[in-house]
C-alpha cells in the first residue's frame, strides 16, 4: 500500500513542508496588520496617567524612559526597560505571557506609539499606552486666514 502510493505520499509531504515553511517564515508577526492596528485608529489604546491609580493592580507597567521616578506611586507591577532591549528574551516573555493589561510609558509619546505598534503586531493584546495628554491629537491651533504676515518680511 505504502509502496503503491509512494509518489502521492512524497508530494503530500512536500506540500506539508511548504506550508510549515510559510507558517514559520512570518517573522513572528500576525498576518493582518490592519486588524492589529485598529485600536490605534480609535485611540482606545491610550490611557491617561491620572487614571492609572484606578486600576486593579494586575497591570504590567513598562517604563521606557531612563527616568524611573515618574511611575512609582501606583499599584501596578513595574518594569524599567530600555526600548532597544524590549525584545530580549528576558523581557518579551514576561510581556507576552502577562495575563492582565500591559501599559507602555515614555515621556516621548512617539517612542511608546512605535513600541506599541511593534508589540501589538506580534500579537500582544490588552496593550495600552500610558500618556500624560489625552488630547495629543486634538488641534491646539487656530489659523486665521486674514492673518497673512506683513509682505515686507
Amino acid at each position, binding site marked *: 500500500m505504502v509502496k503503491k502510493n509512494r*509518489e*502521492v505520499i*512524497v*508530494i*503530500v509531504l*512536500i*506540500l506539508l513542508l*511548504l*506550508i510549515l*515553511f*510559510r507558517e514559520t517564515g*512570518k*517573522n*513572528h*508577526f*500576525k*498576518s*493582518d*496588520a*490592519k*486588524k492589529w*492596528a485598529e485600536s*490605534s*485608529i480609535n*485611540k482606545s489604546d*491610550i490611557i491617561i496617567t491620572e487614571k492609572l491609580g484606578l486600576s486593579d493592580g494586575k497591570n504590567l507597567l513598562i517604563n521606557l524612559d531612563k527616568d524611573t521616578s515618574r511611575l512609582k506611586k501606583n499599584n501596578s507591577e513595574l518594569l524599567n526597560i530600555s*526600548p*532597544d532591549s*524590549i*525584545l530580549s528574551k528576558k523581557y518579551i516573555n514576561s510581556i507576552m505571557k502577562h495575563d492582565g493589561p500591559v501599559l507602555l510609558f515614555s515621556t*516621548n*509619546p*512617539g*517612542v511608546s*506609539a*512605535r*513600541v*506599541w*505598534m*511593534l508589540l501589538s*503586531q*506580534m500579537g500582544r493584546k490588552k496593550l495600552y*499606552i500610558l500618556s500624560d*495628554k489625552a*488630547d*495629543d*491629537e*486634538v*488641534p*491646539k*491651533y487656530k*489659523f486665521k*486666514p*486674514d*492673518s*497673512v*504676515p506683513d509682505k515686507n*518680511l
Partner: protein
Amino acid sequence: MNTRQKFSAGLLIIGFILALLPLSGSRSFTVRPQKLLGEVLDSNTWFTVDQVARFIVTEDSSVQIIDLRTPEEFKTVNIPGSINLPYNKFLDIDPARLLSNGKTKNIFYSNGDFDSNFALAIARGLNLKNTFVMKGGLNEWFNTVMNSTFTGERISARENALFETRTRAKKMFSEMNSMPDSLKLKFIQSTHLAAKKLDGGCE
C-alpha cells in the same frame, strides 16, 4: 506518465503556487521584529519642524510631506505641498503605492505625535523605507514656526538663519492657506506639475 503521476505533478504545481501567494488579501509586517525595533528607534527617523520648514522654503523635491489628519482638517489648513492620507485609511489602501519611491523622503505629520508614529511603525514594518515623522506634528509647527518671534537686541548668524527660515515658511503657509479652496487646489496641482517638469528636465 500515468494518471497518478499527472495528478501528483498537478498537486505539486498548485502547492508551489499557493506557497508563494500571500495567505489572504491582508498585509502583514515583513521586517523581522528585532530589525524593525532598531529602525523605529533610530533617531534619524524624526525631523524637527525647523527641518521641515527648511525643506518647504527650499522647495526640496526629494521630500514628500504626508498629512495623516482627516480630509476636513486638511482642507482647513495644511503644510504647503503636503498630500492627505488620513490615518484611518492608511491600511485600507496599499501605502506602498504612495510611499514606495526609494529616493523620496516621506515625512508623516498629524496634529500630535501618536498617529504619525503609528503610521511610521506600520510603514517600516511593511518594509517601506524612507519614512519619517515630523516631531510634535502641526501643534508643534504652530508653536515653533507660526508663533515665531524675536524680541532680543542682538542675534547670532545661526539664530538669524533659523528665524528667516521660520518667517519664510510662515509666509508660505499663511499665503497658501488663505487662498480660496479652488485656488488652493490649483496651487497644489501647479506645484506637482512644476516638480514633474523638474524631474523630467526640459520639455
